[in-house]
């Protein structure tokens, strides 16, 4: 394998804000360096490309020790929305786009965006549920085909 990374295929499998952003940042960062990139959305990670849900992705405030929030407080109604709102404001200051805009940016950068067939079947979704840039639904085998010759990153 060459010393230089020329291609990456990133799997986004989680549906929380902190589960989705790292993969998007890695994909966008790859394209910024001229590295070929694919993003494969699976399981709850599909929310990032789901037209009805991608604007409503939230930080998990329960069972998330990284927040250093008392467990009971994490479950208070509205806590997740509040923390998400605060984080979104901080991200905007750093010029990190909201998820829908970020996914569109990555698509425009020439990265391939794909939905996982098993998850689409499981959640009874169809291509129309997804944003126009990510309506190709592929199997795991097809994903490996697209990832051939590059690195695979699971998030």
């Amino acid at each position, binding site marked *: 394998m060459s010393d230089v990374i020329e291609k990456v295929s990133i799997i986004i499998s989680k549906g929380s804000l902190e589960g989705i952003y790292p993969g998007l940042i890695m994909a966008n960062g790859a394209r910024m360096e001229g590295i070929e990139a694919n993003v494969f959305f699976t399981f709850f990670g599909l929310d990032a490309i789901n037209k009805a849900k991608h604007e409503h992705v939230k930080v998990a405030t329960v069972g998330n020790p990284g927040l250093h929030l008392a467990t009971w407080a994490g479950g208070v109604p509205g806590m997740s929305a509040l923390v998400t709102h605060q984080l979104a404001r901080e991200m905007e200051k750093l*010029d990190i786009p909201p998820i829908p805009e970020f996914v569109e940016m990555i698509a*425009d950068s020439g990265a391939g965006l794909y939905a996982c067939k098993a998850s689409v079947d499981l959640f009874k979704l169809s291509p129309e549920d997804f944003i126009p840039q990510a309506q190709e639904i592929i199997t795991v085998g097809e994903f490996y085909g697209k990832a051939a010759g590059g690195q695979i990153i699971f998030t």
Partner: protein
Amino acid sequence: MSTVMLAGSTVDVDPEGFLEHPEQWSEPIAEEIARTNGIQSLTERHWQVVNFMRTTYLESGSAPSIRSLGKTSGVPIKELYELFPKGPAKLAAKIGGIPKPRGCI
């Protein structure tokens, strides 16, 4: 830091070939950096991006992110990647004679 000869002038560059001193830059230098990075000739659209990067850096002290480049340079993101396939922000900064952008976005 090392010194190289670009378009007949001596300039200081970092290990990746970014100019250390933006004031040493000139348009012929930009053309030569572009050629060595796979862009045979700079079109008007290339210049629009390069000049925007350079002006923003000289005015604000930092290069714009790819997001603001797409929003405010007048060249949308899709076209940015067509113009600079090896990375628009990085390459436009290099051609524009400003330091490599350090942002992750």
